[in-house]
């Protein structure tokens, strides 16, 4: 099987194959496989502790899986661990808790990757960083420090920080879960714009309104495996497993009424 060529021809940007991850005695991921094509958005749902964050972290090797392979645009990430930094640059990541660099103002948060990793000169990095801040609607907050920003603004800065690296694919790990309800909308809007603009995205979220309107595919993880996957329409109306239906019904209860 020549996946490299096949992926290239089919526009597959990211391929995850048979990922296994164990912490201590707990096998968290028991063989997860999926792939995503250019410009698609996949939403991952699943109960708390089901391994969604672990899966995202395995993709850019923040966590090293025991078994399994990852391809990015036909190149095997898990085969080139010495150059892992080159792959990480191309995989943008947005965290639940923002993880902004607290001692740097917004624009410096966004440009630091360009300066440290891409070795770009400061002036050019600043221009790109300002452009990314504009894209998330925060150019006026460029000189503010994380502690001076609202949660929604922090998350938008962190999205801009990831975008500045010009990634091939973006991973979002519950980007709105730490936000007050009234701040969720502004972040989802930025993400929706990104998806419309053709960004390839893997999003862990329980914002079903977002999933319904943006996702090409929803993946439901349970017991360390993908239990169900398909278009939003299929998962909402006709899932393979009764368990999926139960979970989706419970989401509103578990995570609060979500934006439609």
């Amino acid at each position, binding site marked *: 099987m020549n996946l490299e060529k096949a992926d290239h021809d089919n526009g597959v940007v990211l391929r995850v194959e048979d990922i296994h991850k164990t912490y201590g005695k707990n096998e968290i991921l028991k063989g997860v496989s999926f792939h995503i094509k250019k410009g698609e958005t996949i939403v991952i749902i699943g109960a708390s502790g089901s391994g969604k964050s672990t899966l995202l*972290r395995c993709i*850019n090797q*923040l966590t090293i899986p025991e078994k399994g392979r990852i391809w990015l645009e036909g190149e095997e990430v898990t085969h080139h661990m010495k150059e892992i*930094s*080159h792959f*990480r*640059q191309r*995989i*943008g*990541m947005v*965290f639940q*808790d923002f*993880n*902004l*660099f*607290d*001692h740097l*103002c917004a624009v410096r948060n966004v440009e*630091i*990757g360009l300066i*440290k*990793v891409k070795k770009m000169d400061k002036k050019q990095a600043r221009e790109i960083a300002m452009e990314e801040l504009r894209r998330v609607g925060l150019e006026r907050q460029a000189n*503010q*420090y*994380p*502690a*001076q920003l609202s949660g929604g603004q922090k998350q938008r800065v*962190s999205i801009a*920080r*990831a975008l500045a*690296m010009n990634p091939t694919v973006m991973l979002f790990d519950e980007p709105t879960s730490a936000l007050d309800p009234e701040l969720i909308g502004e972040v989802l809007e930025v993400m929706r714009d990104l998806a419309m603009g053709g960004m390839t995205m893997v999003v862990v979220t329980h914002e079903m309104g977002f999933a319904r309107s943006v996702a090409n595919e929803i993946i439901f993880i349970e017991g360390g495996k993908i239990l169900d996957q398909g278009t939003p329409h299929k998962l909402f109306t006709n899932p393979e497993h009764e368990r999926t239906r139960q979970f989706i019904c419970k989401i509103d209860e578990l995570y609060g009424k979500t934006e439609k």
Partner: protein
Amino acid sequence: MVGKNILLIYQSIPFLLRGLVVTIGLVGGALGLGFILGIPMAIGQVYGNKYISGLISIYVWFFRGLPVLVLLFLFYFGLFILFNLNLSEFTSAVLVLGLISAAYQSQIFRGSIKSIGEGQMLAAISLGIKKYDAILSIILPQALRISIPGWSNEYAILLKDSAIAYAIGVMEVLTRAQFVATRTYKPLPIFFISAIIFIILTYGGVKLLALLEKKVRIPGYGEER
């Protein structure tokens, strides 16, 4: 009697002030050495493998576990001679105080580094920033800021500990005070002046560090509540 005391105090001030320079040299040198060693030790303890962090723990345990005077004698009369190092009293005192301070400073920095939380490190790595680069340009700038109050404490303690260099004859403030006191049989005024010198140094340094803390404070940080 009073007039004679005042004269004595007056005459001995330049002599004591030269001791002040020595004391500042001792404290500055030891703090500097402690800083240069303490930072990599803290990094090694937090990010190093178990052998590195184990080794550093032993170092810290040793230097924090023994009285300053015991360490000073152990090195000055023991190890430095054993290894044929021809060190002056001053250099010896700076080295020993610096090695001790490194143990304490490493723990101050370690605490600060750990308080930052791993999220920022993950974010840096996810951008493709190398780990050592993330430590230097993201973790340390924050850890150092957080460390200033603890560091200020360490300065005050080290300043007072530096008087122990008297025991090996370093001509710092206390040694000189003792010198004047035994020659004039008037210990009280001289030790009184020495005490004032130490107090000024302590609070002057602490004040300066508090100013520094304010100057480098991250805007918006810790303002709420």
